[in-house]
């Protein structure tokens, strides 16, 4: 199959943020053995968690619609 090349404008660009050095030291200790390769990766991971929590807020009306369907499917009492 012809696999599309990722366009240049589709590449992720990175910026710089500043953190207090003691915090960086704590993060370096925290990520040992986790598979997270760098302080930047850890910070991205945590921030995505925080932001996805906000993005994941579903309005009540839509939530009720899903719950209604889940009950119909038998997954909820």
């Amino acid at each position: 199959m012809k696999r599309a090349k990722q366009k240049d404008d589709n590449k992720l660009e990175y910026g710089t943020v500043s953190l207090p050095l003691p915090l960086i030291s704590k993060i370096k200790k925290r990520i040992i053995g986790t598979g997270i390769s760098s302080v930047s990766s850890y910070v991205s991971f945590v921030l995505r968690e925080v932001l996805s929590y906000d993005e994941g807020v579903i309005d009540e009306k839509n939530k009720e619609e899903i719950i209604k369907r889940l009950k119909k499917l038998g997954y909820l009492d």
Partner: protein
Amino acid sequence: MLIKMPKNIILITADALRPDVAVHLPFLGKLVSKSSFFSNVFSYQNNSTGAFYSIFSGIYGNKSEANSYFGSLNFKKDRCKLLTQYFKEQGYFTLAHSMSDIILPREHFDAYYCELDEEKIPALYDRMLYELKHCGKNFFVHFHVALIHTRIIENVAKKFKYKDKEYYEQVEKNKENYFQYALEADARIQHLLEQFDLRSCILVIYSDHGTTYGEKFGERFYGSLCYDDTLRTFALFYGADFPAFCSDLVVRGVDIMPTLLDVMNIEEDGKTIMDGKSLVPLIKGKKEERVAFSEVAPLQGSSDYPSPKKPNIHAVRTNYWKLLFYRSTNTYELYDLKNDSHEDKNLINRGLAVEGEMKRLLHKHLD
């Protein structure tokens, strides 16, 4: 030069059908021997919404945000192009049956029917067959054979709570019951396919997720934990482009879409990069290790740590190893599947070199 004629596309989701059972069914078992069959297809999620959206988008739900039953509300359409859209743009008539519209994405279907009532399904299928016969175009159709789901809800979900020990003490009985449900699903698929001239079609039959018989306490059927029995599915490709072939290599549900595009010579549009990769090279004999990523977002009443809107158990799986990460307790499990296929012996923190590599693979997805 041979001209490649457009083919009709028939997709059948055999909801919750286990691969080890599918091969023993009277109809599907025979079809397996005439198809390109993958028996180790790992689903992105062991709930239908996450599984379907990943199959139809070719990307995992952590990217599309269709990562739970509530995910259909969060689905980021701009991050992918749905399989249905590719065929719609090729001029196909697109038609679907789904047991619920929170499961199969509605977008780009010319007609979309939701029906869960098994008594009404035969009449619905007759209607859909009539529409296909008279559409005057090539067609792309999806049927959702949900008999196993229906029987499990009737006989397990409504009778046993997830902590009822009785259920987990009758694994053999659960297994026998499940086989009866699978026989019903098999007969439904056979009856359906007898209505088609398959010579002009590409047929893909797959399950969205697996099912457990209750071997692991806390998981009655699927959707609560992240062990293989609930994530392992199959994909069967039948048609002139697919030789008789069988593979037990680990592949993923997200690989189904790029395989179809590959065989139909439809180019990806470059809007997004799919997580899935075509299975055609494997059918042609290439040996390749693929890493499967899965997540679970347990509903209320199905887990000690429910998280219905956001996955809280994550896993990566290779041919021989699996790592699970439980976000709620910040704990890991590691299994050597070559020697422990039932995932009984947790090898985390034993100093194995593979642990770091598996953690790296997992966090590549989570980051």
